[in-house]
């Protein structure tokens, strides 16, 4: 059965022969066994969840199914026959399509060119592809303008390009790698509708995620991976979210403890007033009239879809970019808009950017050396311009001990640590400097559950001790769990922060999509 063909499509029942099967698939990276004898079976027309923590081996497995990696052992069967998938082209020839988590798109090219690149039978002249694109986008309600450049599109539109690119090949199996991590709640609903329509037409979907509620809402079957092994297979609709979580993590699932509601009347520690900044690079976002305050003991969450000015806001707060006027940013009451990063730190600012390796830390340098990056202003690490490695090492060891950073010692290169351990280190490096204000972006992006719990608890404890904390995140669940108030950033503008209790997920979703909701009383109006 082929999606998009005119023939009527008999939907194959689950219980029929598997469309795709893996048997005892093993893949090693050096000493690490990323996939250890993995068995998986996906039937036609089913939405099959591949569930697991970050680092459980989900991406490795699907890369093998799409021909980007080769298994060291074991077999892949397609419609019952063993197959070799040496490259993505071979996967596509079989009828396997894939939508990547970090999209495989080309910013400087048009939508049509991007789609042509993903087709093996594309016409020589890309312009002749345009009608086909329009036809498929109409059939599935995936609005797309083939002539536009990708760099001008929103994240949701970018994902549509990837999906349309797959649909044009009439796939029998569509692999979706963490497709919702960058979408607004409304965009997620729309995506689910498309996926259900595809499944109804007989296309199997392998859906990779660690978001439990989504899987329970969408999927018919779930295979759960942990540390490279299949630990369970189940019907997610029959399980509770907590039950799935326990299978995924392997032990009792811990969440950060919610603390007592903070006083919202504390002294203001960080204030930003009418801050506007032009975009500093070709495709950057301009900040426009940003105003907010964070009081001592408060956690303010900033939600938003990636690429709406979060990076620019962080740079403006950290001092990587200077504000037009000094009073527009105040740290502990002192005007700081014209101060550089080091002077702002001296006023009590701590910053943890989104990118761990390359921004928060330098992967090639040791943990000790990484202490010098942000510790110079508040720790005695320098003597007349000379470095004091012993002092830095002692501090690094304190961070390692206090935040349970797993590493050989403080001389290990930062890049050799796992994502979760490096994140614990860079968060700990800021917190142990006892900042008055902490700005942190995507604190738990892509790290394992244990590290998530450690980091979130550390942020809550820090606020409890009187620090003003600003959390910039795309993970709504995280913001709802941590924040006292939430504001939403969209296209470089920030909504007024509102107490969490007065906000619904739908409200935030609408604001993330750029639709201002004047009051929380207005009912959700369905499709935007």
């Amino acid at each position, binding site marked *: 059965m082929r999606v998009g063909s005119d023939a009527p499509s008999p939907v194959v029942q689950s219980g029929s022969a598997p469309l795709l099967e893996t048997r005892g698939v093993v893949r090693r*990276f050096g000493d690490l066994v990323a996939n250890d004898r993995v068995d998986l079976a996906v039937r036609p027309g089913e939405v099959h969840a591949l569930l697991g923590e970050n680092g459980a081996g989900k991406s490795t497995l699907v890369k093998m199914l799409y*021909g*980007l*990696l080769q298994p060291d052992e074991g077999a892949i069967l397609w419609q019952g026959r063993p197959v070799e998938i040496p*490259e*993505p*082209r071979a*996967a*596509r020839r079989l009828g396997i399509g894939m939508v*990547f988590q*970090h*999209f*495989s*798109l*080309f*910013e*400087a*090219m048009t939508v049509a*060119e991007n789609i*042509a*690149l*993903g087709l093996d039978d*594309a016409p*020589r*002249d*890309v312009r002749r592809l345009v009608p086909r694109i329009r036809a498929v986008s109409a059939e599935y309600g995936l609005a797309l303008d083939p002539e536009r450049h990708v760099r001008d599109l929103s994240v949701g539109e970018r994902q549509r390009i990837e999906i349309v690119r797959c649909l044009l090949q009439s796939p029998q199996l569509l692999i979706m790698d963490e497709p919702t991590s960058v979408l607004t709640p409304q965009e997620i609903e729309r995506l689910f509708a498309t996926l259900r329509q595809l499944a109804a037409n007989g296309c199997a979907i392998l859906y990779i995620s660690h978001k439990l509620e989504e899987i329970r809402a969408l999927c018919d079957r779930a295979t759960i991976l942990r540390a490279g092994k299949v630990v369970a297979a189940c019907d997610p609709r029959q399980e509770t979210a907590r039950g799935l979580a326990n299978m995924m993590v392997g032990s009792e699932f811990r969440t950060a403890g919610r603390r007592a509601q903070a006083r919202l009347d504390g002294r203001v520690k960080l204030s930003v007033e009418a801050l506007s900044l032009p975009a500093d690079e*070709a495709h950057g976002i301009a900040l426009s009239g940003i105003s907010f305050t964070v009081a001592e003991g408060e956690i303010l969450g900033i939600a938003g879809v990636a690429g709406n000015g979060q990076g620019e806001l962080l740079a403006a707060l950290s001092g990587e970019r200077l504000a037009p006027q000094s009073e527009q940013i105040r740290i502990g009451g002192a005007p700081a808009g014209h101060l550089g990063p080091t002077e702002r730190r001296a006023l009590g600012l701590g910053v943890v950017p989104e990118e761990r390796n390359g921004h928060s830390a330098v992967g090639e340098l040791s943990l000790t050396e990484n202490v010098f990056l942000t510790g110079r202003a508040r720790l005695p690490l320098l003597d007349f311009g000379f470095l004091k490695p012993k002092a830095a090492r002692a501090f690094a060891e304190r961070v390692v001990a206090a935040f349970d950073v797993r590493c050989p010692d403080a001389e290990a290169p930062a890049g050799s640590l796992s994502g979760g351990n490096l994140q614990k280190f860079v968060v700990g490096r800021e917190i142990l400097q006892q900042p008055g204000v902490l700005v942190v972006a995507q604190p738990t992006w892509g790290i394992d559950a244990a590290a998530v719990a450690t980091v979130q608890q550390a942020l809550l404890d820090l606020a409890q001790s009187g620090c003003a904390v600003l959390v910039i995140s795309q993970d709504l669940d995280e913001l709802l769990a941590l924040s006292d108030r939430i504001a939403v950033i969209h296209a470089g503008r920030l909504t007024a922060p509102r107490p969490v209790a007065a906000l619904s997920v739908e409200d935030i979703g609408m604001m993330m999509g750029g639709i201002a909701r004047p009051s929380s009383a207005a009912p959700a109006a369905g499709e935007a």
Partner: protein
Amino acid sequence: MSLDILVPMTLTVIGAATPLLFAALGELVVERSGVLNLGVEGMMLAGAVVGFIAVAGTGSHAFGLLAAALAGAGMALLFGFLTLTLRANQVATGLALTIFGIGLSALIGVKHVGIPIPALPKLDIPGLSDLPVIGPLLFGHDILVYLSLALTIGIAWFLARTRQGLILRACGEADLSAHSIGYHVIRVRYCAVLFGGAMSGLGGAYLSMAATPMWIENMVAGRGWIALALVAFGSWRPWRVLFGAYLFGGVTILQLYLQGSGILSIPSQVMSMLPYLATIILLTVIASGSWRGRLDAPACLGKTFSPPS
């Protein structure tokens, strides 16, 4: 100025522009695939000396051109092996290629210095070439001049209108994306690098076979670097590179004429600085125009690609 001066002057501009155009077009293709090869100067020298020796040995210009292109491509292969297969730093490797090319060409050419060979013949088209003004301007050039213009059109068409051109640009824009949908980034870049080498070789051959049909040590004299600057000046577009090459040819010839005319009492060395200074000025102009330049550079230019595991 009368036509008597203008026509021969234009002809010499073409002569000065053509080697730059070959090398710059080749490097343009290389850079659009995401690779920065700073070894243009070395590859041009290899092409110049090998092309010259081939003609001196066989008397065949066709064979000379083929040998020059292969010599340039051979040098490029070395660069490709180091940067693409062994993932060495492109800047350092390009510099090494130039240093190596200067030495190697001098070594190979040491017995051939100063010996003249017959120049690459002009393609005389009876009747047309004899027309006044238009004849010498449009007809009666050597084959490389026409080839360079045809290649400008061909490369522009290839990049904009063919599937292979699209894939090549994709590798330069987002190597990881291209890899993840199944393109062989390294293979595509090898092809681009080899093509760039062959083009540099032809550019060098133009110098030793047509412009001054003899071998002089280090005769490329920085033109490889100017070609690199032209690619940025042309914001990675073939037609603008063509314009840039002729503009530079013009500057070079202008200073020669001014030197020869004796109108200005400026030492010849000062006039010779003009092309180099003009390069710096043009680089500054394009860099400070915020409306373009940076915007058009291939996103992966100069970055080493290691396939993710």
